[in-house]
């Protein structure tokens, strides 16, 4: 292949590396209003009185808005960016008299510069009626304290939500007689796991600027993954027609799902719509850490039944998810904890998966790479690792015996068939890469340090089956270069380039011949947005189809110019050639002709949606060195083999994998969110919230074991999310193999390891 499966440079790479001004805060108009938010210091409170007179008098202040400027009985909305009708309950107002977490916005202040806005923020006086808060998600369901007691709370989808029970969602599914099969198993492990509300921590903070355009419409430029959903959300929040809103994204400085929630667009939008003046809001890192859209905290109870020979027969999973104060992505993330972990073990005869998603007075959760699968796979894979130990089996061998194969039907994966799968090859490959047979389970290095190895498997989806929509519009321009218009959002992942590669492959041209435009609700064809691992698989297919259609149009105009029938010509990418006499007309000549006396539009637009979501698979193996004295655990090597189908751009796929793996390692070893008794996040800066630095990791090695997915463009599946999942179980197992300790709560800090070893010593002494 000429363009696909080639490691071409990202189209924007050199612009980014030389520091060109391409992000929201670089592009915001000079002199626009600076917007900031006054935030609640209480986890649950009613605003009794709010005085803004003094704040409004601060020189330079343009406007101060409070709940009194927002109809409290109006329709509520959600900031989650998913396909309508949005499954997340409609539970927000732009400003609400009832504040529900420490950091919930209380007032919007806009002024000419930061100084006057900061001053005005200090001068707003608020009297709160402080209410008892729901702080523990384990006791939230049916708690007498309600996070959303209001009557205009609304669930548009039947997701089992009930605000009078603090329930954001509830679901149950299964197949086979789970209790009977478990009772018949030789061994049943019953384990509970807890994962925290970790932060995406993209380097670019949330940012948006707004202005009123030539036609009097609201023009929003935002660092977002979801331009179309954002338009819908803002229009509903402001109570204005969608026709009055245009949303555009420039370069996005990382998303990882954080920007699949419209975390902050509504605030400057509100200011600009009310004042008709341009405005911008850029979150501080502290706001990014305390009032954003982190991963859902979850508790998972796994019951895993197996026979002595290692046959896994039943998986029973109950997941409790903490959506925080608002329900963004609550009903949908929880499903992946089961639907993307249980199917790995295709030989099981029965499964049950029950879930509850509860409201608490905590920062609202949202979408984060892995989207529930990360948490579920940690629970299920760690239990499988423990099963291997209990049975005295090699954890990799146990996997090979039980995993899903190509052609298997996956009852826990919406009944879909596994149409492409190289998971067995992935396991074999990582074993070689890490030197599994020599290193498993652990080696004492003789210096107080022990090196353990551990393994974990993962799967994800490729878009949401029957829901996600990807579109592409392609046209021919002067001299024959192409423009590809998309609504998918390149957030650094390189989808602009990858989609251009797919177009170039079909059009037999160089990737440089395809320019890419995206994303803008006024100009892009509709696309759900860049999330759910959908872009390469779903939008990529739309690009392929649009390019095929455009080829036909090029041939039609070429044939007309050559004076022959369209059936008589071929297009080799440069020329349309008449097969009967060899005469030809070049792409450039056709482009020129298309602009003079022409009636054949050299443009094609296609929309694609897939009824199934072929999973990418992955095996990861970690070698972790544990210092038994200090408890420090360091990943010295991480090996991963990925089956993402055809990697459209092997370089970009590799970096996706390496980056995802390190995020996963951060989640196991250092990233934590804890609250004080008042409900305040303690890890509110990069000083306390520790994402890995380049000194915290040895080497990450990634190889591809590709299957070929017939439903994907040129055999491709997704890559973006599956890559974050394996480190959680693999590193946890490696630490176990080094120390003998099983951890079921993340992160596993040096302190936890030392405390665990002290407990080990105590129990040894008792014996």
């Amino acid at each position, binding site marked *: 292949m000429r363009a696909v499966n080639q490691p071409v440079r990202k189209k924007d*790479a050199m612009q980014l590396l030389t*520091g060109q001004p391409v992000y929201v805060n670089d592009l915001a108009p000079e002199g626009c209003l600076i917007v900031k938010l006054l935030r609640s210091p209480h986890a649950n409170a009613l605003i009794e009185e709010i005085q803004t007179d003094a704040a409004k008098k601060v020189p330079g202040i343009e406007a101060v808005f409070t709940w009194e400027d927002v109809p409290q009985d109006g329709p509520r909305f959600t900031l989650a960016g998913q396909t309508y009708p949005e499954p997340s309950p409609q539970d927000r107002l732009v400003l609400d008299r009832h504040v529900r977490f420490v950091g919930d916005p209380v007032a919007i202040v806009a002024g000419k510069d930061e100084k006057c806005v900061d001053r005005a923020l200090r001068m707003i006086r608020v009297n709160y009626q402080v209410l008892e808060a729901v702080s523990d998600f384990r006791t939230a369901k049916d708690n007498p304290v309600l996070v959303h007691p209001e009557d205009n709370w609304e669930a548009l989808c039947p997701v089992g939500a009930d605000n009078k029970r603090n329930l954001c969602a509830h679901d149950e599914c299964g197949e086979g007689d789970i209790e009977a099969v478990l009772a018949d198993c030789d061994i049943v492990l019953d384990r509970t796991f807890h994962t925290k509300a970790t932060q995406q921590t993209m*380097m670019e903070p949330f940012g948006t600027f707004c202005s009123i355009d030539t036609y009097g419409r609201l023009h929003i430029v935002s660092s977002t993954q979801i331009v179309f959903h954002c338009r819908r959300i803002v229009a509903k929040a402001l109570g204005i027609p969608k026709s009055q809103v245009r949303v555009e994204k420039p*370069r996005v400085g990382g998303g990882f799902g954080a920007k699949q929630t419209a975390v902050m667009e509504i605030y400057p939008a509100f200011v600009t719509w009310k004042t008709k003046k341009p405005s911008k809001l850029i979150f501080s890192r502290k706001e990014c850490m305390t009032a954003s859209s982190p991963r859902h905290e979850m508790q998972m109870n796994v019951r895993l039944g197996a026979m002595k020979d290692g046959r896994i027969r039943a998986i029973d999973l109950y997941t409790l998810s903490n959506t925080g104060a608002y329900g963004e992505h609550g009903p949908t993330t929880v499903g992946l904890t089961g639907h993307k972990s249980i199917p790995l073990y295709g030989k099981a005869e029965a499964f049950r998966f029950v879930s509850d998603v509860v409201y608490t007075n905590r920062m609202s959760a949202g979408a984060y790479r892995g989207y529930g699968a990360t948490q579920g796979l940690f629970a299920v894979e760690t239990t499988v690792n423990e099963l291997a130990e209990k049975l005295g089996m090699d954890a990799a061998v146990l996997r090979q015996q039980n995993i899903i194969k190509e052609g298997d039907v996956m009852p826990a994966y919406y009944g879909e068939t596994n149409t492409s799968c190289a998971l067995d090859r992935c396991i074999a490959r990582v074993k070689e890469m890490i030197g599994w047979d020599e290193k498993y389970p652990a080696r004492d290095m003789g210096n107080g340090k022990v090196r353990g190895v551990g393994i974990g498997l993962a799967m994800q989806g490729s878009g949401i089956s029957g829901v996600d929509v990807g579109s592409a519009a392609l046209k021919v321009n002067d001299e024959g270069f192409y423009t590809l218009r998309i609504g998918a959002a390149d957030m650094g992942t390189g989808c602009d380039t990858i989609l251009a590669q797919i177009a170039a492959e079909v059009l037999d041209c160089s990737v440089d011949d395809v320019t890419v435009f995206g994303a803008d609700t006024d100009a892009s064809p509709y696309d759900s947005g860049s999330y759910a691992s959908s872009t390469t698989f779903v939008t990529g297919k739309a690009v392929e189809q649009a390019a095929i259609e455009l080829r036909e149009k090029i041939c039609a105009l070429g044939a007309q110019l050559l004076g022959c029938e369209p059936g008589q010509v071929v297009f080799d990418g440069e020329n349309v050639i008449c097969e009967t006499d060899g005469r030809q007309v070049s792409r450039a000549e056709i482009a020129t002709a298309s602009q003079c006396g022409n009636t054949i539009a050299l443009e094609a637009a296609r929309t694609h949606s897939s009824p199934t979501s072929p999973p990418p698979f992955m095996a990861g193996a970690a070698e972790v060195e544990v210092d038994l004295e200090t408890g420090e655990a360091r990943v010295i090597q991480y090996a991963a083999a990925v089956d993402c189908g055809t990697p459209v751009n092997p370089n970009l796929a590799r970096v996706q994998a*390496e*980056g995802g793996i*390190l995020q996963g390692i951060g989640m196991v070893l250092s990233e934590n969110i804890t609250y004080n008794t008042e409900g305040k996040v303690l890890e509110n800066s990069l000083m306390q919230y520790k994402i890995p630095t380049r000194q915290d990791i040895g080497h*990450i090695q990634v190889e591809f074991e590709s299957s070929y997915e017939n439903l994907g463009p040129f055999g491709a599946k997704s890559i973006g999310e599956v890559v974050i999942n394996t480190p959680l179980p693999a590193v946890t197992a490696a630490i176990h193999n080094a120390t003998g300790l099983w951890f079921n709560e993340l992160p596993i800090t040096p302190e936890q390891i030392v405390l665990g070893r002290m407990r080990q010593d105590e129990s040894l002494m008792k014996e």
Partner: protein
Amino acid sequence: MQISLTLNGKKVQADIAPDMLLLDFVRAQGCMSTKRGCETSNCGLCTVFLDDRPVLSCSVLAARADGHSVTTLEGLQEEAREFGAFIADQGAEQCGFCNPGFVMNALALFRENPEPSEEEIREYLSGNLCRCSGYEGQLRGILNFLEWKKKGGAS
């Protein structure tokens, strides 16, 4: 207060507030490559050169630059392109938001230590956070660049 300094080789005079940060100053001067990623001097995104030494411009008052020379990536375009090409060949620029600070600090490293070991690279750049790449692709790019430099830098 009045300050005068050299910004990317050009004399600049400005009337600034005494508490203005160098980061906000260079951005106000149009040097948008310099990014703010945190408020706690942890991310490295705002790295600039103050008299040819890398500093975090979020932690330096603009007033401190009075009479000194400040360089942002806008002033190092040729070097940035030369080195950046090796990162681009790995796809390790990704979202790009950390790139200017990372490139600035990498260039500072190469000036200080033209043949750094892998450990020295990790240590010198440990304050430059990146959430996309896992650092591995950046390391490959740096090592390839150093190899190319060693061979005389001929393309």
